[in-house]
Structures are given as structure tokens and as C-alpha cells.
């Protein structure tokens, strides 16, 4: 202010110029371009970033659902049981992410073959070659059952409280002992006092020579002495004045009426000097590995050691491991070696399938065409006299047997029927989308007319029409669908009909509400006052204003159809006869715990689809809403 006060501002007449001194004063043409409702809506839609992104993702998904089933050549109609449960694979196996490998933790470890003991159909060879990494637990776990992969531990000879009071016996098969044979027996016990609530019991060990109970040679008499026994049988026989006997080794455990009594035996070894003729039987009866004895020896009908009580295993050592396995190698990798005769090889060479020269050996094998069943020759066998080829043993890639030219790659893995999930998902999505579009189109057309009439005329017409929609809409859609399926059969057409039958109600409802909203407005009233017909009011004034909401409703109708189709599948009413997204999802649901990719991948697609559809639909609604025009 102060500055202004100090300055003297002087204006002269020349400083002022009339702007339109000589110009014609008249209306000028608008310089902005005229635009239509839809163009304007499109322009405003393009401004909404999230909707555009939603639209793009939606477009990609729609495009994929068209392209993927065409590009991927896999057969998705037939069950391929050998190829089931393949993990998703994008990168080479071993990269650690999306590489078709499966991680398993805490699996029983097969120490003999140094592989995880997976009891599936796979042979050890195929497990070995598809094994990517394995980490074995350093400390073995101790278990009380005889596992095939267990080692060591003790044999438990336990009494039973059920037959209280009776001693129980564990006896070997009869063996011929002679006083000259230098027969010895070594037994190792354990005094571990901690076993399933029982107590170590009194026991004795003896050789049962004859049928009568007195005809015995005592090795150790009743007592609680669990120190190791080293007993010279031949010497004892000599002292007893017997030359040769056929006897069983018997463990006799004294029973208690109230408790389980037991004895733990770690190993028994029966040895003789070299030239006895029953060394094999002695070896079979002897054992150093209790678990192995239970696993192998007891496969005999009565076992090498028969027991009247309960014979079990205690503290068998079992190792566990974590491993990563390439599921593709497991299924498509080398097959087991197969032997082919010389004449077969000759045919292959004659047909030009391969080259092979047996005088050079397996390394001369060259595969020429895909008809040849093997890829590698492991060994060959020559006839002993003529030194000509008798047979070769070779291996081929398993995928060739399954009819592929190269190792297949399943981006999303395969499901329980061995079907490629990617193709199945998008084929299902395509079905859902087509169904959605058809249903949306039909319901849009019908619902619009119905809703307009009901909403515009109101009163009794509205009440009547509303009751009709209420009755139809009140029947749960699941019942409508079930009745349709039962009367018309389960197919695509039935689903479309059933979904249309209930679907148009929501469009009609939206339209009706919109009509109620707008029909009382001043502009409608003005138009009516000017004598506009019902027809004109409906189509020129009310409908364009409510179009946005109704169109959005129809877009959401498509998501509704996809949702309904999927949810019906979860209720055991899935679409049959064609690929269905919902049926796939609900079929895969039980495998969530074991093969999570089977559920997660389709769920991600479904979620992506729904989210982008909603974003897109919301954008459309805002764009079509005339009241939001110019608000941004």
C-alpha cells in the first residue's frame, strides 16, 4: 500500500484502446468440437487409470483364453494318468523357482540306495536321476516298529497281560548241533529299563533238545542278568555226554499277572567251525541287525524265531531326509533299461532308424529318427560261438513312449488326470466368458424392456411385474439349475438357459430402480408437460440417463455368470461336456494341502479376472454417469 501511495500514476486518454472498436458484434461459432455421449464417456474412462489397467488385464486374459487353447497342443480331453501332478515349470530344473521341482521334507531315507524312500510307482533308477538335492538328517530317529528302511535296534520279547501267568517262549528253528562242530552262541542283551510301561523280566535261555520240558541244555538260568552271553554249545554237549542233538534255542520270559514283562535282545550269533554242513541255517538264525531280522527272517511262515508272546522291535534307527526332485525327469526321464534282440536291432538299421556296429560296441550307436525306441545303448551281448550280436540293452527317453518329440513343459503343471492346467484353465475360462457374454446379452435385452415398463408405469403394473420377478428370483438359482439339468440334461445350453432365467431379474431390477429415480425429475416433468409420448420419455430422457448403471450392471453380469458357474461346481453341479473353470477348481480343491499349485494358479487367475472386471466395470459406471460429467 505504502509503495502505491508514493507513486503518482497518471493515465492519459491514449492509454485506453477499445477492444472491439470496429468489429462486428455477433455470435461466434463454438470452437470446441461437438461430442457424443459415448465419445465423452470413453474420454472420461481413459482418464481413470485403474480402470484402464483393469481393462488391459482383462483384455490380456480374454486374449489368452482365445490364444492359449490354440497354441498349446496338449490333449486336454483324455486322462493321462502317468503324467499327473507335474509341478509348474518355466525355468530349467534346479534354478529353484518355478522349475518343475518338488520339495519334500522329513521323508524316510533309503540308506542302502542313498535315495529318499518314496513309495510311489517310480523305480530307484528314476528317483536317482531326477534327484536334484538331498539333505539327510544327521541324527537317526528311533522308532518302535519294523520299517523296511530301519536298521539296528532290539528284538522285544514281551509277555501279554491278557494271558497272565503263562511264560512266553521265543524259539529258533531246530538246528543240528554236534559236540565236534565247535558250536558257539553269542547273545547281546540290553538293560534299557524304559519301554511302553513294562518292566524288564526274568528270563532263561536254553537249548531244547527233545519234546519233553526237562530235556534241555541250560545256557543261562532264570534271573535278571542282562550281561552278554558267550556260550560254547559243543563243550556243553560233550559235558552232558551227547554226541549230536537237534535242538532249538529258546528264550523263556517269566510272566507277571499285572504287568508286561519284556527282554531286549540286540543280536544273536550262532557260529561253528568251517566244515559244518548247516552253516546257512546258522547264519539265517543269527542276526546282528534286529530290524533286518524282523523284516527278512520273519517272512518265513513261522519265522526263524517263533514267539508265543509278542515279538516286536525297539529303537530301530531310521533316517529322514529333505529332498528336491525334478518331477519332469521322474515322469519323462530315462526309462528302465530294456533288452532288444539282434533281429530287432537289425530291423531298425534296415529301416534307417539308427546306426549300430556291434564290433565297435555301445558307443557306436547313433540315433537317426524318432522311430527308434532307444536313445542310449548301455551294453551288448555277443553270442559265445560266432561272436555275433545276440542282444543289446538300451534306454530311451520316457517322453518318447508317451508320444512327445521333446521333453514337455507345463507352465502351470498338470492336475490329477495329467492334463495341462494352463490350457485347461484358459479353455475353461473361454467357456465361462462365452457363457457370460451370451447370458449378459440376453438378460440385458430382456431385463431392459421389463424393467423399463415396470419402472416407468409403476402402480399396479409394477406390483404385478415385481411379484413375477420376485417369484422367479426367489427360487434359489441352484434349484432352477438343478431342475433344468434334471429336465434338460447337463450341458452348455442348459446352463445358459438356467442362468438367463434368473439373470435378467437383476438387470430388470436395476433398470426399474433407475426409472424410479429419474421419472420424477423436473426435466421429465417438463417434457411430459410439453406433450412427449411415453415412448419418447422412456427412450430419449430416462433411459440415456440410466444407461451407465445398466451397462455396468451387464458387465458385472458376466462376472456374475463366471462366479455362478464356478460356485455351482463347488456344489457338485458343475458344467459337464465341455471345459469348465469351476469344475477344474473344485476338482483340484482336495489337493490344496499336497499340491498347492493346482489350486493357487487357477485361484490367482480367477482373482485377477474378478478384480480387473470390477475395476473395468467401475470405470465404465463412472464414465457413463452423466451427473459426474465435468466434475473432474
Amino acid at each position, binding site marked *: 500500500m505504502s509503495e502505491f501511495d508514493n507513486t503518482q500514476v497518471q493515465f492519459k486518454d491514449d492509454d485506453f484502446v477499445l477492444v472491439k472498436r470496429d468489429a462486428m458484434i455477433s455470435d461466434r461459432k463454438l470452437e470446441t468440437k461437438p461430442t457424443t455421449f459415448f465419445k465423452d464417456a470413453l474420454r472420461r474412462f481413459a482418464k481413470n487409470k485403474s480402470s484402464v489397467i483393469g481393462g488391459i488385464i482383462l483384455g490380456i486374459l480374454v486374449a489368452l483364453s482365445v490364444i492359449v487353447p490354440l497354441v498349446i497342443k496338449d490333449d486336454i480331453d483324455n486322462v493321462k494318468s502317468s503324467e499327473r501332478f507335474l509341478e509348474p515349470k518355466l525355468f530349467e530344473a534346479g534354478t529353484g523357482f518355478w522349475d518343475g521341482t518338488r520339495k519334500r521334507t522329513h521323508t524316510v531315507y533309503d540308506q542302502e540306495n542313498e535315495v529318499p524312500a518314496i513309495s510311489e510307482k517310480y523305480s530307484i533308477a528314476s528317483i536317482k536321476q531326477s534327484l536334484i538335492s538331498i539333505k539327510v538328517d544327521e541324527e537317526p530317529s528311533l522308532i518302535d516298529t519294523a520299517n523296511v528302511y530301519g536298521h539296528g535296534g532290539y528284538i522285544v520279547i514281551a509277555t501279554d497281560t491278557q494271558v497272565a501267568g503263562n511264560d512266553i517262549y521265543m524259539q529258533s528253528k531246530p538246528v543240528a548241533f554236534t559236540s565236534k562242530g565247535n558250536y558257539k552262541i553269542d547273545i547281546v542283551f540290553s538293560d534299557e529299563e524304559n519301554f511302553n510301561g513294562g518292566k524288564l523280566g526274568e528270563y532263561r535261555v536254553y537249548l531244547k533238545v527233545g519234546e519233553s520240558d526237562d530235556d534241555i541244555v541250560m545256557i543261562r538260568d532264570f534271573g535278571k542278568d542282562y550281561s552278554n552271553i558267550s556260550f560254547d554249545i559243543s563243550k556243553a554237549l560233550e559235558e552232558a555226554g551227547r554226541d549230536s542233538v537237534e535242538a532249538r534255542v529258546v528264550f523263556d520270559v517269566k510272566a507277571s499277572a499285572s504287568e508286561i514283562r519284556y527282554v531286549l535282545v540286540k543280536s544273536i550269533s550262532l557260529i561253528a567251525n568251517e566244515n559244518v554242513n548247516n552253516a546257512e541255517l546258522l547264519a539265517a538264525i543269527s542276526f546282528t541287525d534286529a530290524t533286518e531280522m524282523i523284516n527278512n527272517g520273519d517272512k518265513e511262515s513261522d519265522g526263524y524265531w517263533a514267539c508265543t508272546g509278542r515279538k516286536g522291535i525297539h529303537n530301530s534307527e531310521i533316517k529322514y531326509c529333505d529332498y528336491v526332485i525334478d518331477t519332469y525327469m521322474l515322469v519323462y526321464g530315462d526309462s528302465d533299461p530294456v533288452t532288444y534282440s539282434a533281429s530287432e536291432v537289425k530291423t531298425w538299421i534296415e529301416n534307417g532308424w539308427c546306426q549300430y556296429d556291434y564290433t565297435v560296441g555301445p558307443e557306436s550307436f547313433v540315433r537317426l529318427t524318432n522311430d527308434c525306441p532307444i536313445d542310449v545303448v548301455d551294453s551288448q551281448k555277443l553270442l559265445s560261438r560266432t561272436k555275433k550280436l545276440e542282444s543289446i540293452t538300451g534306454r530311451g527317453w520316457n517322453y518318447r513312449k508317451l508320444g512327445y518329440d521333446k521333453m514337455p513343459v507345463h507352465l502351470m503343471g498338470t492336475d490329477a488326470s495329467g492334463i495341462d492346467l494352463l490350457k485347461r484353465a484358459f479353455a475353461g475360462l473361454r467357456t465361462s466368458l462365452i457363457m457370460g457374454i451370451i447370458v449378459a446379452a440376453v438378460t440385458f435385452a430382456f431385463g431392459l424392456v421389463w424393467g423399463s415398463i415396470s419402472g416407468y408405469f*409403476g402402480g399396479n403394473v409394477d406390483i404385478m411385474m415385481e411379484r413375477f420377478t420376485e417369484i422367479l428370483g*426367489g427360487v434359489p438359482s441352484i*434349484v432352477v439349475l438343478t431342475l433344468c439339468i434334471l429336465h434338460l440334461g447337463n450341458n452348455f445350453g442348459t446352463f445358459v438357459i438356467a442362468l438367463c432365467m434368473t439373470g435378467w431379474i437383476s438387470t430388470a431390477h436395476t433398470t426399474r430402480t433407475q426409472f424410479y429415480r429419474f421419472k420424477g425429475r423436473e426435466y421429465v416433468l417438463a417434457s411430459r408437460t410439453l406433450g412427449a409420448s411415453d415412448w419418447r420419455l422412456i427412450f430419449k430422457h430416462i433411459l440415456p440417463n440410466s444407461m451407465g448403471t445398466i451397462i455396468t450392471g451387464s458387465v458385472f453380469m458376466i462376472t456374475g455368470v463366471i462366479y455362478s458357474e464356478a460356485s455351482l461346481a463347488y456344489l457338485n453341479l458343475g458344467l459337464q461336456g465341455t471345459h469348465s473353470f469351476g469344475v477344474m477348481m473344485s476338482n483340484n480343491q482336495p489337493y*490344496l494341502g499336497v499340491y498347492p499349485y493346482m*489350486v*493357487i494358479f487357477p485361484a490367482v487367475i480367477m482373482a485377477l479376472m*474378478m478384480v480387473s*472386471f470390477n475395476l473395468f466395470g467401475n470405470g465404465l459406471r463412472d464414465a457413463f454417469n452423466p451427473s459426474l460429467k465435468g466434475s473432474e
Partner: protein
Amino acid sequence: MGKYIAKRILLAFMTAFIILSLTFILCKLLPFEKPVGQEAERVAYYDKQYHLGYLFRFEEETDKYGEALYKTSGSKGVTYYYYQVPVLEQYGRWLGNIITKWDWGYSKTIQPNVSAGKIIKSKIGYSIRLNIFSTLFAVPMGILLGIWAALKKNTMTDHIISTIVTVFISIPGFVLISFFLKIFCYNLGWLPSTWPSDMAPLAQKIKGYILPICCLSFGSICGYTRYVRGELCEVMESDYLLLARTKGLTRRQAIIRHAMKNAMVPLFPSILADVIFIFGGSMILEQLYVIPGIGKLFVSALTAKDYDILFVDMAIFTTFGLLAGVVLDLSYGFIDPRIRMGAKK
């Protein structure tokens, strides 16, 4: 208004009656499903159906009513033949039984020869409990989030909340439960992967509620959040709120006394409608999480074609659904008094 409400409620019951009648006739038009099970149970079932009036019983064969459904020797050495009564006649007797004796019939396969009312009674508790808990969880959560988003309009908080709302409102419950099961049951092992049995300890039972409540309420939470945010944003820009601020109220006072009150009014009918609507339970959720509620019962009854059970179950669903529709329709009047539902042109 009162007259309109009364008319609507009366009409809702009329509609329910028509729906049930239609479904009854349509279902009964399908071929008769014979019960499978023990001989004694089957005899008892046919006997009950005969006494309810859905079957004829003759002592000798006749070809008047189509093929004989079942043949059995009675206690006095008499052989009975059972035939299906014509559908419309069955319908009449069905209505008669319900009106005079409130007898909804007996189960055929789900729990053979147990009355439908008894089965429903044993199942409905689970559904109602689950839905009440999830509403109790969803309403405050939704309102709070909505208010928060509205107060922080166009900030990062608002954008995050809006994004989450859009995502969760779009993802179907059965997809959501797959993710939850994978993360919380299989990976972390915090929650049971199916509904715990009645024998399970209390802690386990409480844990069993967590997942279904989450799946049921996430959608509603998002719905309420979106609704409250929109409503509150609109009110915040209104002239009367500006006036309230101008006359000297603090922001807090203006929001709580003026904005909230007005924003909440239209919300309550929709909450009420929501509560009534979800009373019936969620079929898919009950199916996936093996919850023994009436939603699962409906699916099993439909699969097993146990119609008597189906009709009771459907009566419950339809009545609640229609009542919810009435409440929702009336709520439009609250939201915008310019809209007069049922008004003539």
C-alpha cells in the same frame, strides 16, 4: 408408508408360498427316487409316506397309478403295494399337513425317517451363530474403515483402503478360502483345515470359527467400507456441514454430530437386510469348510434328492431372502426421500 410396508410384507409371504408350491410341483414331477438303506428303514419310510398321504397303499397290484414303487409284506402276512399319488393331490396333502399339523415330512436318505423339522433344528444353530458372529465383526470394522478412509480422503491411507476394498470385494469367497486354507492351515498350521467336531475342546472350536468368519465377513466389510466412505464424503462436502464449521464447531464436533448421523441413517436398513439375507448361511463356505449348517444341508438334500428336507430348507431361505428384499427396497426411501417405491408414473 405403514400401509405400503404391510402390503409388501404380506406380498412377500404370498410370494414365498408360490415359490414353494412351484418348486414342490416341479420337484415332484421328477421320477420318484427310491430310498436306499436298511429294509426296516425303507418299510418305515414307505409307511410314513403313506400316512402323510404321498403314496397309495393297496393289498393287490393295480395298474391305475403306474408301476408299483415298492412291495412289502405287512405284519399280518398281507402284501402291500405302494403307488405314487398324483402330483397335485400330493401338493394338496402337503399343504394340509403343514397348515393343520405343521408337519413338513420326513428325511429319506440324509437321516432316514427323522422329521425334517428336527434335522433343521439341529443344523440351523451353526449357520445362525456363524452369521451373527461374522456380522458382529463386519459391521464395526466396515464402518470404522469407511470413516477412516473418508476422513483421509485422497491420501495414501484412503488409496490403500480403497484398493484393498476393491480387491476383496471382487475375489469370490471360495477363492479366498483357498488362499486362507493354504496360508493359515497348511503352511502355518495355526487354524484347523475343517470345522472342528462338537467333541473338540473349546479352544479348537473357537479357532474353527476364525476362517469362516473371515471369509464371510470380508466381503461385507468391504461393502460397508465403500458405502460409508462414499456417503460420508458426500456429506462432508455438503453446505450444512460448512455451516456447522462456520458457526464455530470443531472438525470433530461437526463430523460426529452432523456428518456421521446423516451418513449412518441409510446404512442401517442395509445392515438389517444383510443380516436377514445371510441368516440362511453360505452354501459354498459350509460345503468347503464342512460346516454342518443348513447351507450344507441344502446341498446334500439336493444331491440326495431328499425333497422333504429340501422344501423346509428352501422355505427358510426364501422367507429370509424375501424379507431382506422388502427391507432393502424400503431402505431406498431412506437413502433418497425423492424416490418413492411403488409410486405411479
